[in-house]
Protein backbone atom coordinates (compact mmCIF):
# COMPACT_ATOMS: atom_id res chain seq x y z
CA UNK A 1 0.00 0.00 0.00
CA UNK A 2 1.03 3.57 -0.57
CA UNK A 3 2.94 4.80 2.45
CA UNK A 4 0.93 8.01 2.77
CA UNK A 5 -2.39 6.17 2.61
CA UNK A 6 -1.11 3.72 5.20
CA UNK A 7 -0.04 6.56 7.48
CA UNK A 8 -3.42 8.27 7.04
CA UNK A 9 -5.32 5.14 7.95
CA UNK A 10 -3.13 4.55 10.95
CA UNK A 11 -3.76 8.07 12.25
CA UNK A 12 -7.46 7.28 12.18
CA UNK A 13 -6.96 4.93 15.09
CA UNK A 14 -7.31 6.73 18.44
CA UNK A 15 -4.30 5.14 20.27
CA UNK A 16 -1.97 5.95 17.37
CA UNK A 17 -3.26 9.47 17.10
CA UNK A 18 -2.97 9.89 20.86
CA UNK A 19 0.71 8.95 20.82
CA UNK A 20 1.44 10.92 17.63
CA UNK A 21 -0.25 14.06 18.99
CA UNK A 22 1.52 13.65 22.32
CA UNK A 23 4.91 13.68 20.60
CA UNK A 24 4.12 16.61 18.30
CA UNK A 25 2.33 18.84 20.78
CA UNK A 26 5.32 20.22 22.77
CA UNK A 27 7.21 20.91 19.54
CA UNK A 28 4.27 22.75 18.02
CA UNK A 29 3.80 24.79 21.18
CA UNK A 30 7.51 25.64 21.36
CA UNK A 31 7.67 26.69 17.70
CA UNK A 32 4.49 28.75 18.14
CA UNK A 33 5.92 30.58 21.17
CA UNK A 34 9.31 31.23 19.55
CA UNK A 35 7.69 32.50 16.36
CA UNK A 36 5.30 34.65 18.39
CA UNK A 37 8.21 36.24 20.27
CA UNK A 38 10.08 36.91 17.02
CA UNK A 39 6.96 38.17 15.25
CA UNK A 40 5.85 40.43 18.07
CA UNK A 41 9.40 41.81 18.54
CA UNK A 42 9.52 42.55 14.82
CA UNK A 43 6.06 43.97 14.79
CA UNK A 44 5.94 45.94 17.99
CA UNK A 45 9.56 47.10 18.21
CA UNK A 46 11.45 46.87 14.90
CA UNK A 47 8.72 47.89 12.46
CA UNK A 48 8.40 51.67 12.00
CA UNK A 49 5.26 53.52 13.03
CA UNK A 50 2.73 54.04 10.28
CA UNK A 51 2.86 57.55 8.81
CA UNK A 52 -0.89 57.92 9.15
CA UNK A 53 -2.01 55.60 11.92
CA UNK A 54 0.99 56.02 14.22
CA UNK A 55 1.53 53.17 16.60
CA UNK A 56 -2.12 52.15 16.68
CA UNK A 57 -1.74 50.10 13.51
CA UNK A 58 0.44 47.60 15.42
CA UNK A 59 -2.65 45.70 16.47
CA UNK A 60 -2.58 44.34 12.93
CA UNK A 61 -0.01 41.77 14.09
CA UNK A 62 -2.67 40.16 16.28
CA UNK A 63 -5.77 41.09 14.34
CA UNK A 64 -4.93 39.88 10.85
CA UNK A 65 -3.40 36.50 11.81
CA UNK A 66 -6.45 35.84 13.99
CA UNK A 67 -8.78 36.70 11.13
CA UNK A 68 -6.87 34.34 8.84
CA UNK A 69 -7.05 31.61 11.46
CA UNK A 70 -10.78 32.05 11.96
CA UNK A 71 -11.30 31.11 8.31
CA UNK A 72 -8.49 28.56 8.13
CA UNK A 73 -9.87 26.60 11.09
CA UNK A 74 -13.31 26.60 9.54
CA UNK A 75 -11.73 25.15 6.41
CA UNK A 76 -10.05 22.40 8.44
CA UNK A 77 -13.34 21.69 10.18
CA UNK A 78 -15.17 21.52 6.86
CA UNK A 79 -12.75 18.91 5.49
CA UNK A 80 -12.91 16.91 8.73
CA UNK A 81 -16.71 17.17 8.78
CA UNK A 82 -16.96 15.90 5.22
CA UNK A 83 -14.77 12.92 6.11
CA UNK A 84 -16.83 12.33 9.27
CA UNK A 85 -20.19 12.47 7.49
CA UNK A 86 -19.13 10.38 4.50
CA UNK A 87 -16.88 7.74 6.14
CA UNK A 88 -18.05 8.11 9.75
CA UNK A 89 -14.45 8.28 10.90
CA UNK A 90 -14.16 8.81 14.63
CA UNK A 91 -10.94 10.85 14.49
CA UNK A 92 -12.42 13.25 11.93
CA UNK A 93 -15.32 13.93 14.29
CA UNK A 94 -12.92 14.60 17.15
CA UNK A 95 -10.81 16.95 15.00
CA UNK A 96 -13.84 18.90 13.79
CA UNK A 97 -15.42 19.21 17.23
CA UNK A 98 -12.22 20.09 19.07
CA UNK A 99 -11.31 22.71 16.45
CA UNK A 100 -14.59 24.57 16.92
CA UNK A 101 -13.81 26.26 20.28
CA UNK A 102 -10.36 27.29 19.03
CA UNK A 103 -11.88 28.76 15.89
CA UNK A 104 -14.52 30.56 17.93
CA UNK A 105 -11.79 31.98 20.16
CA UNK A 106 -9.81 33.28 17.17
CA UNK A 107 -12.99 34.81 15.71
CA UNK A 108 -13.70 36.49 19.05
CA UNK A 109 -10.12 37.83 19.21
CA UNK A 110 -10.51 39.15 15.67
CA UNK A 111 -13.69 41.00 16.60
CA UNK A 112 -12.23 42.38 19.84
CA UNK A 113 -8.96 43.58 18.34
CA UNK A 114 -10.88 44.91 15.34
CA UNK A 115 -13.05 47.08 17.53
CA UNK A 116 -10.02 48.21 19.56
CA UNK A 117 -8.38 49.21 16.29
CA UNK A 118 -11.53 50.78 14.89
CA UNK A 119 -12.04 53.12 17.85
CA UNK A 120 -8.98 55.33 17.24
CA UNK A 121 -8.95 54.88 13.44
CA UNK A 122 -12.57 55.07 12.37
CA UNK A 123 -13.86 56.81 15.49
CA UNK A 124 -16.23 53.95 16.19
CA UNK A 125 -15.69 50.50 17.61
CA UNK A 126 -18.35 48.90 15.45
CA UNK A 127 -19.57 49.59 11.95
CA UNK A 128 -21.84 47.44 9.80
CA UNK A 129 -19.09 46.92 7.31
CA UNK A 130 -19.29 43.77 5.18
CA UNK A 131 -16.17 42.20 6.67
CA UNK A 132 -17.11 42.92 10.27
CA UNK A 133 -20.61 41.60 9.80
CA UNK A 134 -19.45 38.40 8.12
CA UNK A 135 -16.99 37.82 10.92
CA UNK A 136 -19.77 38.25 13.48
CA UNK A 137 -21.95 35.79 11.57
CA UNK A 138 -19.00 33.39 11.50
CA UNK A 139 -18.83 33.64 15.28
CA UNK A 140 -22.53 32.75 15.49
CA UNK A 141 -21.95 29.77 13.19
CA UNK A 142 -19.13 28.57 15.45
CA UNK A 143 -21.31 28.98 18.54
CA UNK A 144 -24.19 27.14 16.87
CA UNK A 145 -21.89 24.23 16.05
CA UNK A 146 -20.58 24.05 19.60
CA UNK A 147 -24.11 24.35 20.99
CA UNK A 148 -25.48 21.60 18.78
CA UNK A 149 -22.58 19.30 19.69
CA UNK A 150 -23.35 19.67 23.38
CA UNK A 151 -27.13 19.41 22.99
CA UNK A 152 -27.01 15.65 22.41
CA UNK A 153 -26.64 13.10 25.19
CA UNK A 154 -24.49 10.84 23.07
CA UNK A 155 -21.22 12.48 22.03
CA UNK A 156 -20.71 10.78 18.69
CA UNK A 157 -24.31 11.43 17.84
CA UNK A 158 -23.87 15.12 18.61
CA UNK A 159 -20.60 15.21 16.68
CA UNK A 160 -22.26 13.82 13.57
CA UNK A 161 -25.11 16.33 13.77
CA UNK A 162 -22.66 19.20 14.32
CA UNK A 163 -20.53 18.00 11.38
CA UNK A 164 -23.63 18.23 9.19
CA UNK A 165 -24.15 21.79 10.45
CA UNK A 166 -20.53 22.62 9.54
CA UNK A 167 -21.23 21.54 5.97
CA UNK A 168 -24.40 23.66 5.89
CA UNK A 169 -22.26 26.57 7.05
CA UNK A 170 -19.77 26.04 4.23
CA UNK A 171 -22.55 26.65 1.72
CA UNK A 172 -23.96 29.52 3.74
CA UNK A 173 -20.82 31.49 4.56
CA UNK A 174 -20.07 32.80 1.02
CA UNK A 175 -23.76 33.62 0.55
CA UNK A 176 -23.75 35.63 3.76
CA UNK A 177 -20.56 37.43 2.77
CA UNK A 178 -21.74 38.44 -0.69
CA UNK A 179 -25.22 39.40 0.46
CA UNK A 180 -23.72 41.59 3.16
CA UNK A 181 -21.43 43.24 0.61
CA UNK A 182 -24.46 43.84 -1.59
CA UNK A 183 -26.47 45.16 1.35
CA UNK A 184 -23.77 47.56 2.38
CA UNK A 185 -23.12 48.92 -1.09
CA UNK A 186 -26.85 49.52 -1.51
CA UNK A 187 -26.82 52.07 1.27
CA UNK A 188 -23.39 53.63 0.95
CA UNK A 189 -19.83 52.58 0.44
CA UNK A 190 -17.53 52.63 3.43
CA UNK A 191 -15.55 55.83 3.44
CA UNK A 192 -12.73 54.41 5.53
CA UNK A 193 -10.81 51.51 4.16
CA UNK A 194 -8.28 49.27 5.75
CA UNK A 195 -5.09 50.30 3.98
CA UNK A 196 -4.32 48.60 0.69
CA UNK A 197 -1.65 46.08 -0.09
CA UNK A 198 0.76 48.54 -1.65
CA UNK A 199 1.01 50.41 1.63
CA UNK A 200 2.55 47.58 3.55
CA UNK A 201 6.35 47.52 3.51
CA UNK A 202 8.55 44.51 4.06
CA UNK A 203 9.47 45.63 7.58
CA UNK A 204 5.79 45.36 8.45
CA UNK A 205 5.08 42.35 6.28
CA UNK A 206 7.55 39.87 7.67
CA UNK A 207 6.38 40.03 11.29
CA UNK A 208 2.87 39.56 9.96
CA UNK A 209 3.87 36.40 8.12
CA UNK A 210 5.80 35.12 11.13
CA UNK A 211 2.74 35.69 13.28
CA UNK A 212 0.68 33.83 10.73
CA UNK A 213 2.88 30.75 11.10
CA UNK A 214 2.94 31.17 14.87
CA UNK A 215 -0.86 31.06 15.08
CA UNK A 216 -0.94 27.99 12.81
CA UNK A 217 1.42 26.13 15.14
CA UNK A 218 -0.48 27.33 18.17
CA UNK A 219 -3.67 25.94 16.63
CA UNK A 220 -1.98 22.59 15.99
CA UNK A 221 -0.67 22.40 19.57
CA UNK A 222 -4.01 23.41 21.05
CA UNK A 223 -5.90 20.99 18.82
CA UNK A 224 -3.58 18.11 19.71
CA UNK A 225 -4.00 18.80 23.41
CA UNK A 226 -7.77 19.05 23.19
CA UNK A 227 -8.07 15.99 20.96
CA UNK A 228 -5.93 13.91 23.34
CA UNK A 229 -8.07 14.84 26.33
CA UNK A 230 -11.22 14.22 24.32
CA UNK A 231 -9.98 10.82 23.14
CA UNK A 232 -9.30 9.70 26.70
CA UNK A 233 -12.84 10.70 27.61
CA UNK A 234 -14.40 9.16 24.50
CA UNK A 235 -12.49 5.90 24.69
CA UNK A 236 -12.55 5.49 28.47
CA UNK A 237 -13.14 1.83 29.15
CA UNK A 238 -11.03 0.73 26.18
CA UNK A 239 -7.89 -1.28 26.94
CA UNK A 240 -5.37 1.34 25.75
CA UNK A 241 -6.88 4.07 27.95
CA UNK A 242 -6.86 1.74 30.95
CA UNK A 243 -3.21 1.00 30.19
CA UNK A 244 -2.38 4.70 30.20
CA UNK A 245 -4.32 5.21 33.42
CA UNK A 246 -2.54 2.38 35.21
CA UNK A 247 0.85 3.63 33.94
CA UNK A 248 0.09 7.08 35.31
CA UNK A 249 -0.97 5.59 38.62
CA UNK A 250 2.21 3.54 38.87
CA UNK A 251 4.31 6.62 38.20
CA UNK A 252 2.75 8.73 40.95
Amino acid at each position, binding site marked *: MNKLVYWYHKLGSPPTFYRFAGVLRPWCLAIALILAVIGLYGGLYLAPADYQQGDAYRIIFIHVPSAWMSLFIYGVMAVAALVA*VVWRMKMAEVIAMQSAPIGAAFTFITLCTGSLWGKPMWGTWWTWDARLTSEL*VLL*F*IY*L*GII*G*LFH*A*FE*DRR*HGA*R*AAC*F*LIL*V*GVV*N*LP*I*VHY*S*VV*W*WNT*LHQGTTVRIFGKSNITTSMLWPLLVMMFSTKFYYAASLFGRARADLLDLESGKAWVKQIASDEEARS
Partner: protein
Amino acid sequence: MSGARVSSACAAVLRRDLLLAWRRRGDMALPVLYALIVATLFPFALGPEAQLLARIAGGVVLVTVLLAMLLAFDGLFRPDLEDGSLEQLMLAPQPLPLLLAMKIAAHWLTTALPLMVIAPLMAGMYHLPWPAMKVLLLALLIATPLLSLLGAVLVALTAGTRRSGMLLALMLLPLCVPVVIFAAGAVTAAQQGLPWVAPIAWLGAALALALVLAPLACAAALRIALDA
Protein backbone atom coordinates in the same frame (compact mmCIF):
# COMPACT_ATOMS: atom_id res chain seq x y z
CA MET B 1 -43.63 1.05 -5.67
CA SER B 2 -45.38 2.77 -8.54
CA GLY B 3 -45.52 6.51 -9.05
CA ALA B 4 -49.18 6.62 -8.03
CA ARG B 5 -48.33 5.19 -4.62
CA VAL B 6 -45.77 7.94 -4.02
CA SER B 7 -48.22 10.69 -4.89
CA SER B 8 -50.95 9.16 -2.76
CA ALA B 9 -48.54 8.86 0.18
CA CYS B 10 -47.58 12.52 -0.25
CA ALA B 11 -51.23 13.51 -0.36
CA ALA B 12 -51.92 11.45 2.77
CA VAL B 13 -49.09 13.15 4.70
CA LEU B 14 -50.26 16.58 3.59
CA ARG B 15 -53.90 15.85 4.46
CA ARG B 16 -52.98 14.41 7.85
CA ASP B 17 -50.85 17.39 8.85
CA LEU B 18 -53.44 19.90 7.70
CA LEU B 19 -56.18 18.01 9.51
CA LEU B 20 -54.14 17.88 12.71
CA ALA B 21 -53.47 21.61 12.48
CA TRP B 22 -57.17 22.28 11.87
CA ARG B 23 -58.21 20.22 14.89
CA ARG B 24 -55.91 22.41 16.99
CA ARG B 25 -56.85 25.77 15.54
CA GLY B 26 -55.89 27.60 18.72
CA ASP B 27 -52.23 26.72 18.24
CA MET B 28 -52.35 28.20 14.77
CA ALA B 29 -53.38 31.57 16.21
CA LEU B 30 -50.43 31.80 18.62
CA PRO B 31 -47.69 32.87 16.16
CA VAL B 32 -50.09 35.40 14.67
CA LEU B 33 -50.80 36.88 18.10
CA TYR B 34 -47.09 36.88 18.90
CA ALA B 35 -46.28 38.76 15.69
CA LEU B 36 -49.00 41.32 16.42
CA ILE B 37 -47.71 41.86 19.96
CA VAL B 38 -44.12 42.35 18.81
CA ALA B 39 -45.21 44.72 16.05
CA THR B 40 -47.28 46.69 18.54
CA LEU B 41 -44.37 47.13 20.92
CA PHE B 42 -42.02 48.82 18.43
CA PRO B 43 -43.94 52.11 18.13
CA PHE B 44 -44.08 52.34 21.93
CA ALA B 45 -40.31 51.99 22.08
CA LEU B 46 -39.47 54.20 19.11
CA GLY B 47 -42.19 56.82 19.25
CA PRO B 48 -45.30 57.25 17.07
CA GLU B 49 -43.71 59.50 14.44
CA ALA B 50 -45.25 58.39 11.11
CA GLN B 51 -42.18 59.06 8.97
CA LEU B 52 -39.89 56.95 11.12
CA LEU B 53 -42.42 54.11 11.29
CA ALA B 54 -42.87 54.10 7.51
CA ARG B 55 -39.12 53.89 7.06
CA ILE B 56 -38.70 50.86 9.33
CA ALA B 57 -42.01 49.18 8.40
CA GLY B 58 -40.63 46.62 5.95
CA GLY B 59 -37.82 45.52 8.24
CA VAL B 60 -40.01 45.29 11.33
CA VAL B 61 -42.67 43.21 9.58
CA LEU B 62 -40.03 40.87 8.12
CA VAL B 63 -38.21 40.35 11.40
CA THR B 64 -41.48 39.93 13.27
CA VAL B 65 -42.69 37.29 10.82
CA LEU B 66 -39.32 35.56 11.09
CA LEU B 67 -39.46 35.49 14.89
CA ALA B 68 -43.00 34.16 14.86
CA MET B 69 -41.98 31.41 12.44
CA LEU B 70 -39.05 30.57 14.69
CA LEU B 71 -41.50 30.17 17.55
CA ALA B 72 -43.61 27.77 15.51
CA PHE B 73 -40.73 25.64 14.20
CA ASP B 74 -40.79 23.50 17.30
CA GLY B 75 -44.11 22.02 16.20
CA LEU B 76 -42.74 20.79 12.88
CA PHE B 77 -41.35 17.44 14.04
CA ARG B 78 -41.75 17.28 17.82
CA PRO B 79 -45.36 15.98 18.06
CA ASP B 80 -44.62 13.34 15.41
CA LEU B 81 -41.41 12.40 17.15
CA GLU B 82 -43.21 11.97 20.45
CA ASP B 83 -46.01 9.76 19.15
CA GLY B 84 -43.64 7.76 16.95
CA SER B 85 -45.18 8.61 13.59
CA LEU B 86 -41.93 10.22 12.46
CA GLU B 87 -40.17 6.84 12.68
CA GLN B 88 -42.98 5.33 10.62
CA LEU B 89 -42.45 8.05 8.05
CA MET B 90 -38.72 7.25 7.91
CA LEU B 91 -39.42 3.55 7.48
CA ALA B 92 -41.94 4.15 4.70
CA PRO B 93 -40.97 2.78 1.27
CA GLN B 94 -41.63 6.17 -0.33
CA PRO B 95 -38.65 8.57 -0.56
CA LEU B 96 -38.29 10.45 2.73
CA PRO B 97 -37.36 13.84 1.16
CA LEU B 98 -40.68 13.96 -0.68
CA LEU B 99 -42.68 13.13 2.43
CA LEU B 100 -40.74 15.72 4.42
CA ALA B 101 -41.37 18.28 1.71
CA MET B 102 -45.08 17.64 2.22
CA LYS B 103 -44.71 18.12 5.96
CA ILE B 104 -42.83 21.37 5.38
CA ALA B 105 -45.52 22.52 2.94
CA ALA B 106 -48.24 21.77 5.48
CA HIS B 107 -46.28 23.62 8.16
CA TRP B 108 -45.86 26.61 5.87
CA LEU B 109 -49.58 26.64 5.07
CA THR B 110 -50.55 26.55 8.73
CA THR B 111 -48.01 28.96 10.22
CA ALA B 112 -46.60 31.28 7.56
CA LEU B 113 -49.78 31.81 5.57
CA PRO B 114 -51.73 33.25 8.56
CA LEU B 115 -48.75 35.52 9.22
CA MET B 116 -48.88 36.74 5.63
CA VAL B 117 -52.56 37.50 6.02
CA ILE B 118 -51.88 39.87 8.93
CA ALA B 119 -48.71 41.30 7.35
CA PRO B 120 -50.65 44.04 5.49
CA LEU B 121 -52.35 44.91 8.77
CA MET B 122 -48.99 45.27 10.51
CA ALA B 123 -47.54 47.23 7.60
CA GLY B 124 -50.62 49.46 7.65
CA MET B 125 -50.08 50.18 11.34
CA TYR B 126 -46.64 51.43 10.33
CA HIS B 127 -48.03 53.63 7.51
CA LEU B 128 -46.28 51.75 4.74
CA PRO B 129 -47.53 53.14 1.39
CA TRP B 130 -49.42 50.77 -0.89
CA PRO B 131 -46.81 50.36 -3.70
CA ALA B 132 -44.19 49.27 -1.16
CA MET B 133 -46.76 47.06 0.59
CA LYS B 134 -47.24 45.06 -2.64
CA VAL B 135 -43.49 44.46 -2.81
CA LEU B 136 -43.46 43.51 0.87
CA LEU B 137 -46.15 40.90 0.30
CA LEU B 138 -44.32 39.54 -2.73
CA ALA B 139 -41.08 39.37 -0.73
CA LEU B 140 -42.87 37.59 2.11
CA LEU B 141 -44.46 35.16 -0.33
CA ILE B 142 -40.99 34.09 -1.44
CA ALA B 143 -39.08 34.56 1.82
CA THR B 144 -41.40 32.60 4.13
CA PRO B 145 -41.26 29.28 2.21
CA LEU B 146 -37.50 29.80 1.97
CA LEU B 147 -37.29 30.23 5.74
CA SER B 148 -39.54 27.23 6.28
CA LEU B 149 -37.27 25.06 4.13
CA LEU B 150 -34.04 26.30 5.73
CA GLY B 151 -35.51 26.07 9.20
CA ALA B 152 -36.75 22.54 8.60
CA VAL B 153 -33.18 21.34 7.99
CA LEU B 154 -32.06 22.76 11.33
CA VAL B 155 -35.16 21.57 13.19
CA ALA B 156 -34.44 18.08 11.84
CA LEU B 157 -30.87 18.35 13.18
CA THR B 158 -32.10 19.24 16.66
CA ALA B 159 -34.94 16.69 16.59
CA GLY B 160 -33.21 14.31 19.00
CA THR B 161 -32.38 16.96 21.60
CA ARG B 162 -34.43 18.20 24.51
CA ARG B 163 -33.65 21.91 24.78
CA SER B 164 -33.68 23.16 21.24
CA GLY B 165 -35.46 26.53 21.27
CA MET B 166 -32.57 28.94 21.83
CA LEU B 167 -30.17 26.70 19.94
CA LEU B 168 -32.42 26.79 16.91
CA ALA B 169 -32.42 30.60 16.94
CA LEU B 170 -28.62 30.61 17.13
CA MET B 171 -28.31 28.15 14.26
CA LEU B 172 -30.93 29.83 12.09
CA LEU B 173 -29.49 33.35 12.37
CA PRO B 174 -26.62 32.86 9.88
CA LEU B 175 -29.00 31.22 7.41
CA CYS B 176 -31.63 33.92 7.54
CA VAL B 177 -29.24 36.91 7.27
CA PRO B 178 -29.22 36.80 3.43
CA VAL B 179 -32.99 36.25 3.28
CA VAL B 180 -33.67 39.27 5.46
CA ILE B 181 -31.17 41.39 3.53
CA PHE B 182 -32.74 40.67 0.16
CA ALA B 183 -36.37 40.84 1.30
CA ALA B 184 -35.89 44.08 3.22
CA GLY B 185 -33.72 45.43 0.40
CA ALA B 186 -36.57 44.98 -2.06
CA VAL B 187 -39.04 46.83 0.20
CA THR B 188 -36.57 49.66 0.84
CA ALA B 189 -35.89 49.99 -2.88
CA ALA B 190 -39.62 50.11 -3.63
CA GLN B 191 -40.10 52.81 -0.98
CA GLN B 192 -37.36 54.92 -2.55
CA GLY B 193 -38.82 54.45 -6.02
CA LEU B 194 -35.88 52.36 -7.16
CA PRO B 195 -36.12 49.12 -9.18
CA TRP B 196 -36.81 46.27 -6.76
CA VAL B 197 -36.90 43.28 -9.10
CA ALA B 198 -33.28 42.23 -8.61
CA PRO B 199 -33.45 41.31 -4.90
CA ILE B 200 -36.80 39.57 -5.48
CA ALA B 201 -35.19 37.59 -8.30
CA TRP B 202 -32.32 36.62 -6.00
CA LEU B 203 -34.83 35.43 -3.41
CA GLY B 204 -36.65 33.46 -6.08
CA ALA B 205 -33.42 31.83 -7.20
CA ALA B 206 -32.63 30.90 -3.60
CA LEU B 207 -36.14 29.50 -3.18
CA ALA B 208 -35.77 27.35 -6.32
CA LEU B 209 -32.47 26.02 -5.01
CA ALA B 210 -33.87 25.40 -1.53
CA LEU B 211 -36.97 23.66 -2.90
CA VAL B 212 -34.73 21.07 -4.51
CA LEU B 213 -31.95 20.77 -1.93
CA ALA B 214 -33.58 21.47 1.45
CA PRO B 215 -35.85 18.37 1.57
CA LEU B 216 -32.82 16.21 0.73
CA ALA B 217 -30.73 17.92 3.41
CA CYS B 218 -33.65 17.70 5.82
CA ALA B 219 -33.93 13.95 5.28
CA ALA B 220 -30.18 13.48 5.75
CA ALA B 221 -30.24 15.62 8.91
CA LEU B 222 -33.19 13.70 10.33
CA ARG B 223 -31.44 10.40 9.74
CA ILE B 224 -28.32 11.71 11.49
CA ALA B 225 -30.27 13.14 14.41
CA LEU B 226 -32.45 10.11 15.03
CA ASP B 227 -30.18 7.12 14.52
CA ALA B 228 -29.21 6.04 17.99
